[in-house]
């Protein structure tokens, strides 16, 4: 491994200076770029691209054919869906942007990366994080927040690798650059690095169980206790932070770095400069100023305050035009070169990728309009939207870049242009099959949920009816996904064969450029156009109104970064502080009490199994929802929910009023095998919960943790008290199950805790204010016997709305 210093020779040669137009005496330096690190990231992109899409196809098959998980809990949809999303975002797209950044930054800055050691630490650290995700998520080790599932030790590692290795290396490179002007792609990279750091840190603030054990309970944490934590935020605030993060992760992990990629690699591939550099600057600032506000559109009609939701909608709609400005800028870069698109598959990938960007950035604002969202939310429409973006925009831009890089990195002609072209067509057909089928599925289900018959009853009261209808579309999705996977395999083969034809020794070009001098001239201030004003006004006109300041910024990475951080942080604070501090946002409800110790550990099982991936816990104040599920959800109901579990997709019914609807025994049998209760159910089996023992000993730590986060647990925090309470409640429930004709000896099994939690959800609101928190929350007998309600989680008969 070599360092940049070792590969840089300092030369003072007066002879070459005049022809390069430099002042005599300036230091001219020689350097070579580090392309090995780019090769490594390109390889990782292809491998993880295959893993992520294969995982996607697998869970897609599970939705159409639930037995595909072979009855193994590690393969259940709830556990593997986070693995798929994390692999697609952080492994596939992540490695792709790193390849793009390492290749383009060196060339735009005319310097080797600041440190080869940091480059390698970044590469291997990131791969280790991805592997650790694969080793934790299938085992139910999760924080239970979408795209932020990884537990706290991995979160810490991400922070170190992202900022400590990648960030320092990138900013170090900017510091030693030899090109004064920072090209717009570099701005997008700067925004990516600083904003993702802010998002990651603040959304993942959590209290680890291990810390509680060490500090409060006094036990040395056991194995899995090292890997459990709870967010410091609860309920509405947690939801708000999560979607502030979730939406901006899309903005600053899947959009800004890919725009940097587009602004560098598209001009390279088209051999033309970007259509409008001005437009690219507008594009950049629009993302920084506007995107950061749009997160609350993920929470329309939920218990989030209405002002936040409306604000998110307004900013989302505003995003449409600048995003399309960016799309047009990308496409118009091909002006005068469209004839090349017909013969060059690389440009085809770029054109279709950028077109998908345009489609996604039109669809996003449309979905953020409340009335559209009331239909689309919780349906597959959202899934189609994100796959248009991920497969079309992120995927195709990555493929275009990789094909452009392969001959340059391996210094051999691409093995097969024809195979590359086939990849393009196969993948395009794959995406279209995927998104068209899933759009149809989403709109179908959304319309079925809200359909009433002539008599004013729900037309499809049984939830499972609305799921079974989607199965044919799910199979089409599987075919589309498979085609996309086949395309990646083709690319891998093409890359492998190109690599085989590489020379014995890679040739490295030696470049030469003068070092930047500390002192430099920003050029004269423009002439003021004011004549009769005071000097200060003239100064203002010259400096600010005529854009001079922006040119200065573009040469000052530190100042530029500070302003980006200031814009992002200010926007975030203006949005977050009122959410946390306006009291009327979360009116407290006197009857809402903390979960009992047993319910609390049951809730952790619910989170660990990833139930939120299919079940929401948020009834919107829409007529068809209150008819189907019951009283709409109130902000005050979630004040003890660390983390919130509102969900974003209903593959199964909402569970916000699940408590007390069914008997304890019904839940046990349903978890053991949902198809015993409802033959059409797509839910995985959870039979393992009936045999695995509940870890009562960890319960005290869990209760202590909640108490440390401000949940009023009273006597339950006394040493051993929580465990005693949990055992007592578990035995009571086990006895009830036996009385209901169910299995015996479940009192020490995990299923008891989960059922205790399920029976508690959403029941407090109908209790008197002074009800004891540990009171049995559910009736001993089934609340509803009719089989229709089995899968529906509440059918047409249970109207409980009081809108």
């Amino acid at each position, binding site marked *: 491994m070599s360092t940049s210093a070792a590969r840089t020779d300092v030369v003072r040669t007066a002879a070459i200076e005049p022809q390069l137009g430099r002042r005599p005496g300036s230091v001219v330096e020689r350097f070579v770029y580090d392309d090995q690190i780019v090769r490594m990231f390109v390889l990782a992109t292809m491998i993880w691209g295959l893993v992520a899409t294969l995982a996607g196809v697998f869970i897609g098959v599970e939705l159409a054919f639930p037995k595909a998980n072979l009855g193994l809990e590690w393969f259940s949809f709830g556990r593997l869906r986070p693995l798929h999303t994390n692999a697609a975002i952080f492994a596939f797209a992540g490695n792709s942007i790193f390849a793009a950044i390492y290749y383009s930054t060196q060339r735009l800055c005319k310097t080797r990366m600041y440190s080869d050691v940091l480059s390698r630490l970044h590469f291997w650290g990131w791969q280790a994080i991805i592997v650790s995700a694969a080793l934790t998520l299938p085992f139910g080790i999760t924080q239970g927040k979408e795209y932020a599932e990884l537990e706290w030790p991995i979160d810490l590692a991400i922070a170190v690798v992202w900022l400590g290795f990648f960030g320092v290396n990138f900013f170090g490179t900017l510091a030693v650059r030899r090109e004064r002007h920072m090209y717009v792609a570099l701005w997008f990279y700067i925004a990516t690095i600083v904003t993702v750091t802010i998002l990651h840190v603040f959304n993942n603030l959590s209290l680890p169980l291990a810390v509680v054990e060490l500090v409060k309970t006094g036990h040395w944490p056991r194995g899995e206790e090292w890997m459990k934590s709870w967010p410091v935020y609860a309920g509405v605030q947690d939801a708000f932070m999560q979607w502030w993060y979730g939406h901006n992760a899309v903005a600053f992990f899947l959009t800004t770095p890919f725009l940097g990629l587009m602004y560098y690699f598209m001009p390279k591939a088209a051999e033309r400069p970007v259509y409008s550099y001005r437009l690219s600057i507008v594009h950049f600032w629009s993302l920084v100023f506007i995107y950061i506000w749009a997160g609350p559109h993920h929470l329309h009609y939920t218990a989030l305050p209405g002002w936040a939701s409306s604000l998110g909608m307004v900013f989302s709609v505003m995003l449409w035009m600048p995003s399309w400005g960016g799309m047009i800028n990308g496409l118009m870069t091909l002006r005068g070169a469209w004839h090349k698109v017909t013969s060059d598959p690389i440009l085809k990938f770029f054109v279709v990728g950028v077109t998908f960007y345009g489609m996604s950035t039109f669809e996003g604002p449309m979905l953020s309009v409340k009335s559209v969202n009331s239909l689309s939310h919780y349906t597959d429409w959202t899934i189609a939207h994100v796959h248009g973006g991920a497969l079309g925009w992120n995927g195709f831009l990555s493929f275009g870049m990789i094909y452009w890089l392969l001959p340059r990195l391996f210094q051999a002609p691409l093995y097969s242009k024809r195979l590359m072209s086939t990849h393009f067509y196969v993948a395009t057909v794959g995406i279209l099959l995927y998104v068209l089928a899933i759009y149809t599925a989403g709109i179908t289900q959304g319309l079925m949920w809200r359909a009433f018959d002539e008599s004013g009853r729900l037309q499809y009261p049984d939830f499972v009816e609305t799921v079974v209808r989607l199965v044919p579309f799910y199979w089409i999705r599987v075919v589309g996904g498979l085609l996309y996977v086949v395309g990646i395999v083709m690319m891998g083969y093409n890359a492998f064969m190109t690599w085989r034809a590489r020379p014995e020794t890679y040739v490295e070009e030696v470049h030469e*450029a003068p070092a930047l001098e500390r002192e430099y001239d920003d050029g004269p201030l423009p002439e003021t156009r004011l004549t009769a004003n005071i000097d200060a006004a003239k100064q203002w006109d010259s400096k*600010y109104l005529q*854009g001079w300041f922006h040119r200065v910024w573009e040469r000052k990475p530190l100042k530029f970064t500070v302003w980006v951080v200031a814009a992002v942080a200010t926007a975030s604070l203006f949005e977050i502080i009122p959410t946390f501090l306006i009291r009327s946002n979360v009116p407290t409800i006197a009857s809402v009490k903390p979960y009992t110790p047993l319910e609390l550990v049951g809730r952790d099982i619910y989170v660990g199994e990833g139930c939120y991936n299919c079940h929401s816990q948020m009834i919107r104040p829409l007529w068809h929802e209150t008819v189907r599920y019951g009283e709409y959800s109130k902000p005050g109901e979630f004040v003890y929910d660390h983390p919130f579990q509102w969900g974003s997709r209903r593959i199964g019914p909402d569970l916000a009023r699940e408590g007390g609807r069914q008997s304890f025994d019904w839940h046990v049998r349903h978890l053991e095998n949902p198809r015993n209760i409802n033959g059409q159910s797509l839910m995985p089996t959870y039979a393992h919960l009936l045999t695995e023992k509940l870890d009562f000993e960890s319960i005290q730590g869990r209760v202590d943790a909640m108490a440390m986060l401000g949940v009023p647990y009273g006597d339950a925090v006394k040493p051993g008290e929580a465990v005693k309470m949990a055992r007592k409640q578990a035995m009571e429930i086990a006895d009830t199950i036996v009385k209901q004709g169910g299995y015996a000896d479940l009192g020490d099994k995990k299923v008891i805790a989960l059922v205790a939690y399920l029976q508690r959800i959403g029941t407090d609101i109908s209790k008197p204010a002074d009800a004891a928190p540990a009171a049995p929350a559910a009736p001993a007998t089934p609340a509803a016997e009719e089989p229709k309600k089995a899968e529906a989680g509440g059918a047409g008969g249970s109207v409980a709305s009081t809108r």
Partner: protein
Amino acid sequence: MRLSEIMGRLDLAFWPQAALVIFLAVFASVVWRLYARTSREEMERAGRLPLEEEGVVGRTGTK
């Protein structure tokens, strides 16, 4: 009285609205200045940066 209680009693609901106006105004001013007040040559020079691969003076090899 705790700080959070004091803050809680302030009516902060106008914050986001005020911020909306401020952010939109700043963004609009960036756009206006950019289009009205930057030189064409400068923009073209910046746009050509990725296409410049000047200064290649030799070659070396690596395994």
